[in-house]
């Protein structure tokens, strides 16, 4: 023995301490299994998805991003229902307003609204509808029905209601309204007992809803357009991402599963598409597709043609572009996942049991690759939104009266010096949408990738 181990031992056994414990034989009765179990702290076992959900929820940044994105969705899809303006209506008297600004006519009406209970102003109606035509009308207001017949059209005037006045319903011409809202002259409207048959309703308003983001040079309300544009951009992003997801995963799965020569050829095609600077082709495609698509939409007014026709040729050709060129990254990822999973035993077992190729893809491979798919799809949405805004900027995306966040930005460029906020609003919302989607994608990656599990 080369070393004296006793000398090296740092352990000092202290007999007195042991003595002080006063051990008894009772202490040395065998412990039962229940007693042993009771001292063990057991973690609840959680499933992969539960665990991923927990990780995502504990990621503050991603949760905030998710919340912000939900706000954006509400803004885009619920917002248009809450404001009285529409993305395509042109308000002739309210062109080129800055944000929160009222036009002269609107100011007069606002002032007038202090002198009556409710009103209907022809100048605040969109487009050429600046008159109420001859005919029978009725108004429901404050639990009462006011029926009347117009002998001639009312133009550039306000139909006002003052329930306490002798003649509750009267017409004031815009030119008769003073700055403080008082008016010198008004024409009472003769009321009838009950609405005539076929009378049309008129809805009165009590105030003028402000143009929060201002209006454009055609008098369209920019907040309504921004809401609608956000809607269009989000739809483009999601649909394009789904297209990419479907084509990419089918292509990648086939390539990975088939292997051999098929895989080789399919991957050369992917490499070729990958090395093409796609924007050049995208630009050409946009120009090529727009006219044929328009013709096709005109010919097919029902079913799918109607839905696509509503979106317009610009957006549909963006979808086609994505279907043709942008699925390659997804295909590569799916193929990688498939190759990785193919080696695993449960797939071999499925093959041995005689499962068909499609069944293997559907039941075994895709559910396992779903983490990678979710992340890539989520990050594809912002890239589609970006591409659309880029094309709209070059004048190739959606065209007025349709709007997307990109086209709103590019429309705003012409007047950037006078109305910088016209660019700011859509640009900020575009940035917020893309930012929140990126952060959600990052959070999903952290939550779904078990390799990062700590």
């Amino acid at each position, binding site marked *: 023995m080369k070393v004296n181990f006793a000398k090296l031992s740092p352990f000092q056994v202290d007999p007195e301490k042991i003595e002080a414990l006063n051990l008894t034989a009772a202490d040395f009765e065998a412990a039962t299994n229940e007693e042993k179990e009771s001292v063990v702290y057991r973690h609840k076992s959680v499933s992969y998805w539960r665990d991923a959900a927990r990780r995502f929820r504990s990621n503050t940044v991603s949760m905030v991003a998710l919340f912000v994105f939900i706000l954006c969705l509400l803004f885009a899809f619920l917002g248009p229902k809450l404001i009285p303006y529409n993305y395509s209506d042109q308000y002739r008297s309210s062109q080129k307003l800055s944000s929160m600004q009222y036009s002269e006519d609107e100011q007069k009406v606002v002032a007038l609204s202090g002198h009556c209970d409710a009103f209907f102003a022809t100048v605040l109606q969109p487009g050429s509808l600046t008159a109420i035509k001859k005919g029978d009308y009725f108004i429901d207001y404050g639990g009462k029905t006011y029926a009347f017949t117009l002998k001639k059209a009312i133009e550039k005037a306000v139909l006002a209601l003052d329930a306490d006045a002798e003649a509750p319903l009267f017409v004031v011409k815009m030119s008769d309204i003073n700055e403080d809202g008082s008016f010198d002259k008004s024409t009472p409207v003769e009321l009838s007992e009950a609405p005539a048959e076929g009378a049309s309703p008129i809805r009165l308003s009590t105030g003028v809803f402000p143009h929060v983001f201002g209006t454009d040079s055609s008098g369209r309300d920019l907040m309504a357009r921004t809401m609608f544009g956000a809607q269009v951009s989000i739809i483009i992003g999601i649909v394009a991402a789904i297209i990419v997801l479907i084509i990419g995963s089918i292509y990648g799965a086939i390539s990975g599963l088939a292997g051999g020569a098929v895989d080789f050829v399919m991957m050369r095609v992917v490499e070729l598409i990958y*090395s093409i600077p796609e924007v*050049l082709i995208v630009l*050409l495609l946009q120009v*090529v597709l727009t006219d044929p698509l328009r013709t096709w939409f005109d010919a097919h007014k029902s079913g799918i043609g109607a839905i696509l026709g509503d979106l317009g040729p610009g957006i549909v050709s963006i979808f086609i572009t994505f279907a043709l060129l942008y699925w390659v990254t997804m295909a590569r990822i799916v193929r990688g996942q498939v190759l990785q999973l193919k080696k695993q035993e449960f797939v071999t077992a499925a093959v041995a049991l005689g499962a068909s190729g499609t069944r293997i893809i559907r039941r075994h491979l895709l559910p396992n690759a779903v983490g990678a798919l979710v992340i890539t799809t989520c990050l594809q949405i*912002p890239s589609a939104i970006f591409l659309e*805004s*880029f094309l709209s900027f070059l004048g190739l995306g959606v065209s007025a009266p349709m709007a997307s966040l990109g086209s709103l930005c590019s429309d705003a*460029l012409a007047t950037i010096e006078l109305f910088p906020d016209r660019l700011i609003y859509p*640009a900020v919302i575009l940035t917020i949408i893309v930012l929140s989607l*990126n952060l959600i994608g990052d959070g999903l990656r952290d939550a779904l990738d078990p390799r990062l599990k700590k």
Partner: protein
Amino acid sequence: MVSYILKRILAAVATLLVIMAVTFFLMNAIPGNPFLSEKASAHAIELAFKKYGLDQPLIVQFKNYVFNYVRGDLGVSLKMQEGTSVADIIFNQGKFARSIKLGLAALALAVVIGIPLGCIAAYRRGSWLDGFLRVMTTVGVAVPTFVLATLLLAFLAVKLSWLPVKSGELTDFKCYIMPVISLSFYYTCYLAKLTRTSMLDAINQDYIRTARAKGVKTGVLVLKHALRNSLIPVITYLGPVIAGIITGSFVVESTFQIPGLGKYFVQSVMNRDYPIIMATTVILSALVIIMNLVVDIAYKLVDPRISLTAKEG
């Protein structure tokens, strides 16, 4: 190495041929033709078609393009500068040079600023600087190029008048500032993010632990051991960055009114000037393909595990 490069060049030529075919197909599918206008009579159009060989079958036209390109003849413009040689328009009028200068400057800026920022953020992980850079880069990759370009224009040029509104022919250093910043900002942020991630990844590797166990100084640890490994994923991303910068130049050239190749391409598509569409597509694609080759060779220099000859198998 040489045989690898030769193989790659062959592959590049094949890719270019496919791109030519696709472009040819697409540009002929654009409705209308270059000579269509209110004044032009059917007869005049027919004459013009004959003159430029557009009356020949498409396959012959395509064959002519390919043969002429092999000879180095890019054809003549049909509309935008009718009769002028395309090579003259692109190379002698400075369009190509301007686009290249802009692109290279933006690429250089993205690399020179983005990668070091990513390293610093990773090295000082958790510090206020890291936090600031993370916020900046995350927001940076969410701002579209044209928004940034327009905001710079509105603020620095229009409001403050510090820089020229129109960058024009890039005669002055000042003309470069805004276009290059807007072109490179997204990629600077992206590269910084990517470098940070891969640097953190590298720092957690076993070989870093080995180096620390050897007593290697922290500075050497980061700059020698971690950096080179973390550059590998960054370099793979440079290919798409280059393609993206060329893409972005379309927007930047039109915002800052620079007569470059990108802007000219968009105009030529609108005008259906076939030879110019074809030439710009081929030149820009060739540029991207060559840069990708350079990136792949750089990849080999950084990572000894990649053997360029074996990769083709």
